[in-house]
């Protein structure tokens, strides 16, 4: 029974592997023919990432509380990184703001 479940999981993983590669190929062909569309490219990248996180990293099989607990942690890290984000303005001219 447990072996059946594991082989089923690997079967799903093979499918996810193919889907991720097909999306990557589509991205490249689309960019070559129609030019890069940033929003579409990002959406497809998020789709690939969500497939990998849910199936390869098995987040889908974990308790929902783990996923929910990671959200405030992510927000905290994002808040702390505000220092670097605001500093990106300085990078434009390689000097501190106001100089």
């Amino acid at each position: 029974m447990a072996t059946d479940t594991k082989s089923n999981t690997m079967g799903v993983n093979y499918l996810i592997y193919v889907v991720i590669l097909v999306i990557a190929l589509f991205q490249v062909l689309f960019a070559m023919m129609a030019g890069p569309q940033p929003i579409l490219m990002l959406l497809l990248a998020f789709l690939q990432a969500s497939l990998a996180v849910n199936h390869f990293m098995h987040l889908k099989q974990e308790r929902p509380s783990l996923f929910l607990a990671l959200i405030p942690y992510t927000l905290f890290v994002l808040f702390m990184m505000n220092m670097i984000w605001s500093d990106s303005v300085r990078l434009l001219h390689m000097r501190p703001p106001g100089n």
Partner: protein
Amino acid sequence: MSQATVAVDPHTGMMEERPFAIPSSKLVMWLFVISDAVTFAALLFAYGYLRNASPDWPTPFEHASIWNALLMTFILVTSSLTVLMAVNAAQNDDRARAFRWTMITALLGLAFTALHLREWIDLIGKGVRTFQNPWGAPMFGATFFSITGLHMAHVVGGVVALIAVGLIYKAGKYSAKHLEILSLYWHFVDIVWMFVVPLVYLMNMKR
């Protein structure tokens, strides 16, 4: 209550429920992955900001570079599958097969790094430096080398970890749990690359 959901306190011997029913080391890996994901997000954000603010942003990647990036994607996504096979074999107590798949994953990581270095050498040969290039906005090199360089450092670090954990696992000192936790990191490296290709390579394709 299964063993997976409880931990034994070494001082009292009492059973206590694990947080989120996963080992603490796995939770720590999840927290690390999120921190690292935000680091890459900040770098890509800064890159996007600079790219939009620079009217002469270079688009140097010819079709050969794009196909090379797609080949690198194929290698990295395949390595995610091979590390899953390693974990699967480890969970079935097949140490020899788990070790073999772990080493194949490490080899794929090395192949990815070699292709990436070839790309770097090619760009450096064309005159791209951290703060200068022959085509336009000088910050192109800084953003390209920092984003792809940080990612490559993660791949190399992952290869070292795969070899080390694989050898210790083969010696019988590590369990399937350790391989599974390491696989989380390796999948994360793969996921980051899924964002690097469209934002750094496809957006800067020569037309």
